[in-house]
């Protein structure tokens, strides 16, 4: 009997045991082949992942380029500022930490939370900026308590600084932090917390001004803690942008508005260089750098007077009597009147069954075109408007640049509106009434222009239509020439002569623009007082609780024979153009003459 043997028969179990071993060995070899794939075939991929794991690129902010006026006066600069960021990864007790940090920084706890929440999608080890623009005095108490606040990171950074505060604020524009969406979707160069130009020159020339951020490549451990530094690229400051602005004229322009809402534009008609651009009310662009509290910000953007808006390119106004320049040029050029044509003004006249008044109730008597411009007589232009009809008027306005952007190097410029039959049919679905033409003839009705368009129009008139240069702020080197210029305006030269004669008389011969007169400078100009306001203006007005007054216009140039400066002034609710706007322009002309003499 086999069972009786000393050694039992174990063949079967031994065979099974060996089989299991070979299965195990086979599985191990399969595993080994997978290790081959991961380690040898996919090595590069995993090596890259390991490198990405352990290195972190920390950007070093580049100082933005300087912005200078035409005489190298610094309008935008940089200064050292300290920035405090919170690293959520190092926060052990969020509630206690938020309370302590907000007390340390003198911040409202809710504001602090909002700032952190804005970037909650970022990895936990990424610092989130919670306070910046701090001066060295503000940073000392924080620095001295570093040990208690391990979650805080303090960095020094170059920061935009506008030494003259709100000076030329609408020209310079303002900076804002990149939104998380922009950081996520933007180019690789985008850096969280980076300030980018949002408006004005800061936005228009952001690519020049921005500079190249530097970077530090840091080796970090799994907690994101820095172990050592691998490479250091120093940041390169952005390029300098030199503007056509003359700070002295700019300062005067802002001062001359005397806290009234309005616009002053001064430019050189020979090359389109803008010498001054003031829009009031204004703001201090430095406040964008040091961050607003939500309350300050909402107050700023809901202010009925819209201080952030650049009225020179975004304010839409009826041109009023300034439009008489367009009428005169169109009328002469089209042969509807000659310089000798006279019209009798008795203070009122009946046209298309409606009684129309001149602004001067006693009447101007009989006069020709030059005197009609000088006196800004409505009756003359009513008659001219009736003779011309809307289409030739609209065509003349278009040829003088109304109804389209001037092309200034600022974004957000508005087009304005020159109505005609086709426009009214398309926009309102109504036919054009001849009575409307009469309103257009004195610059009222649906006409809408920006002060910059009027400045450009005045420049065309000053140059007698021979040349036109797009208004611009970027000062090109003398040999490079300005930006592309519009061509000549095809009006008869004699038409310009008559219009300019009228403008000269307006300022120098007892006309409506005599407030702008400068002894020995041959100022030529035209005033305007708009009786109507746009719907937005009306709403704004109601909100501001203002008494209704007309907007006050003046636009002119000097000197008559060799024009070197165009000044356009608009004062909202300023009353008569001659009384309010013309003296402002006069100050600018005088100052220009004075600086020129030096």
């Amino acid at each position, binding site marked *: 009997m086999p*069972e009786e043997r000393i*050694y*039992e028969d*174990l063949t*079967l*179990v*031994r065979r*099974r*045991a*060996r089989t*299991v*071993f070979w299965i*195990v*060995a086979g*599985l*191990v070899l399969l*595993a*080994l082949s*997978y*290790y*081959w794939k*991961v*380690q*040898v075939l*996919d*090595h590069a*991929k*995993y*090596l890259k*992942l*390991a*490198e990405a*794991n*352990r290195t972190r690129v920390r950007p070093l902010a580049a100082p933005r380029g300087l912005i200078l006026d035409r005489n190298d006066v610094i309008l935008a600069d940089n200064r050292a500022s300290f920035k405090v960021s919170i690293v959520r990864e190092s926060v052990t007790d969020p509630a206690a930490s938020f309370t302590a940090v907000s007390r340390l920084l003198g911040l409202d706890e809710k504001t602090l939370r909002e700032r952190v929440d804005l970037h909650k999608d970022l990895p936990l080890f990424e610092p989130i900026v919670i306070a910046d623009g701090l001066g060295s005095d503000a940073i000392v108490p924080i620095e001295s308590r570093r040990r208690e606040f391990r979650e805080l990171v303090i960095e020094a950074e170059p920061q935009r600084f506008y030494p003259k505060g709100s000076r030329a604020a609408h020209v310079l524009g303002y900076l804002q932090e990149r939104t998380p969406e922009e950081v996520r979707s933007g180019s690789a160069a985008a850096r969280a917390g980076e300030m980018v130009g949002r408006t004005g020159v800061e936005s228009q020339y952001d690519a020049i001004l921005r500079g190249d951020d530097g970077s530090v490549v840091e*080796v*970090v*451990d*799994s*907690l994101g803690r820095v*172990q050592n530094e691998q490479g250091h690229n120093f940041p390169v400051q952005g390029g300098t942008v030199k503007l056509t602005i003359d700070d002295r004229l700019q300062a005067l322009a802002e001062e001359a508005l005397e806290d009234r809402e309005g616009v002053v534009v001064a430019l050189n008609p020979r090359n389109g260089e803008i010498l001054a651009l003031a829009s009031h009310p204004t703001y201090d662009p430095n406040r964008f750098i040091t961050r607003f509290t939500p309350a300050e910000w909402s107050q700023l953007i809901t202010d009925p007077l819209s201080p952030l808006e650049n009225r020179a390119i975004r304010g839409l106004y009826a041109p009023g009597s300034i439009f008489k320049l367009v009428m005169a040029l169109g009328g002469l050029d089209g042969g509807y009147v000659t310089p000798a044509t006279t019209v009798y003004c008795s203070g009122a006249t009946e046209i298309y069954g409606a009684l129309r008044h001149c602004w001067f109730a006693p009447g101007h008597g009989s006069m020709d075109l030059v005197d009609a411009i000088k006196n800004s007589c409505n009756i003359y232009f009513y008659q001219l408007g009736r003779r011309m009809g809307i289409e030739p008027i609209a065509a003349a306005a278009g040829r003088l640049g109304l109804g389209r952007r001037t092309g200034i190097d600022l974004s957000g410029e508005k087009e304005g509106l020159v109505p005609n039959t086709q426009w009214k049919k398309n926009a309102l679905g109504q036919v054009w009434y001849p009575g409307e033409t009469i309103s257009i003839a004195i610059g009222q009705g649906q006409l809408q222009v920006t002060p910059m368009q009027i400045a450009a129009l005045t420049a065309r008139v000053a140059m007698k239509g021979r040349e036109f240069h797009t208004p611009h702020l970027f000062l090109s080197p003398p040999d490079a020439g300005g930006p592309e210029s519009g061509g000549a305006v095809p009006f008869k030269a004699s038409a310009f002569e008559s219009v300019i004669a009228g403008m000269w008389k307006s300022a120098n011969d007892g006309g409506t623009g005599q407030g702008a007169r400068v002894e020995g400078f041959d100022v030529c100009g035209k005033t305007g007082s708009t009786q109507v306001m746009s719907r937005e203006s009306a709403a704004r007005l109601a909100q501001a609780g203002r008494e209704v007054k007309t907007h006050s216009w003046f636009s002119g140039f000097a000197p008559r024979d060799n024009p070197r400066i165009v000044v356009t002034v608009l004062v909202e609710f300023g009353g008569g153009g001659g009384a309010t706007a013309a003296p402002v322009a006069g100050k600018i002309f005088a100052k220009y003459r004075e600086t020129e003499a030096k």
Partner: protein
Amino acid sequence: MMMIDRRLFQEIDWVLLGLVLLQALIGVFFIYSSSHFLAGGYHVRQLIWIGVSLIVLIFVLAIDYKFFVALAPYFYVMVVAVLTATLVFARFVAGTKSWITLGLMQLQPAEPAKIVMILVFARFFAEYKSAYVRSSRTLGALLIAGAPLLLIILQPDLGTAMTFLAVIGGAFILAGLRKKTIALLVVAALVAGIGGWNLALKDYQKRRVTTLVNPQGDPRGSGYQVIQSKIAIGSGGLAGRGFMKGTQSQLRFLPARHTDFIFSVIGEEAGFLGVFIVIALYLALLARMFLSVSHARDRAGVYIIFTASLLIAFQFLVNILMIIGLFPVVGITLPFLSYGGSSLLTSFVACGLVLNVKMRRFANV
């Protein structure tokens, strides 16, 4: 009885023992590399544990395995008692109650339980000579294994529970399973698996399984370990990044570096060559262990050699699959190489049992 007689001493499989020690020493090097920046001197502690384990191994060798097999029922009762006590008295550490503290030492009772199960099965199947196991036997074995298994599942320690199941399954394979029984077990496993998934598994355990399918689904959570481990292994390349130069382990991206994921450190710092060498040594060791069945003089010996070898083999295989993302992260250490006294001791004792059987093949009792 404590004296090992000279003839027996000559019969010790020195090659097997040498392979074990070599693995353990390789482990010490990489434990050092992956933990030198931590306080605690893990490599020194591991060396001490190797010493302790060797002494215990000699003790195991000194006593005829038949004596252990005879005592198996008592060991079994003790282990079940200690596992029960662990459940009652142990504090939660990392979500499980698997550690008990004895003075300065922390022990995992589930580890010695593995050894006890080896002996229990050896005893249970020693006199069972049929070519195939009958249902009644199967049921009996399942009941015996069930008690400690349930206690470990309750801790919960999924890794050890799986290792248990592997040992039980191995014993059945050896005893011989009919197709009908296999079908029955598969159905039972499916029912247990589906039921376990829905009723017993904790959320973190379910996540580990889903993570295996899609590690990027939760890269900061449970997928993190697998992703980081794979990056470590892959970045090692053919020759490795150099001893103590692996960024994944040195900068602590790799989790559980000196314990469960020690092989990832080897993969990163010694590259595929290191992986190949360790796996080759391991296969040699396993071959030496498994194939010792030829030298067992009785059925109990075969069972001891086979289940002990399978215990090591299963943990090895699961560990090297787990760290490269081919198996859920279940907390199974790499025997001999991973840091940890209980694990090291268990592995050494398992080898000791194999050596014990092998050296007594001619003993006439």
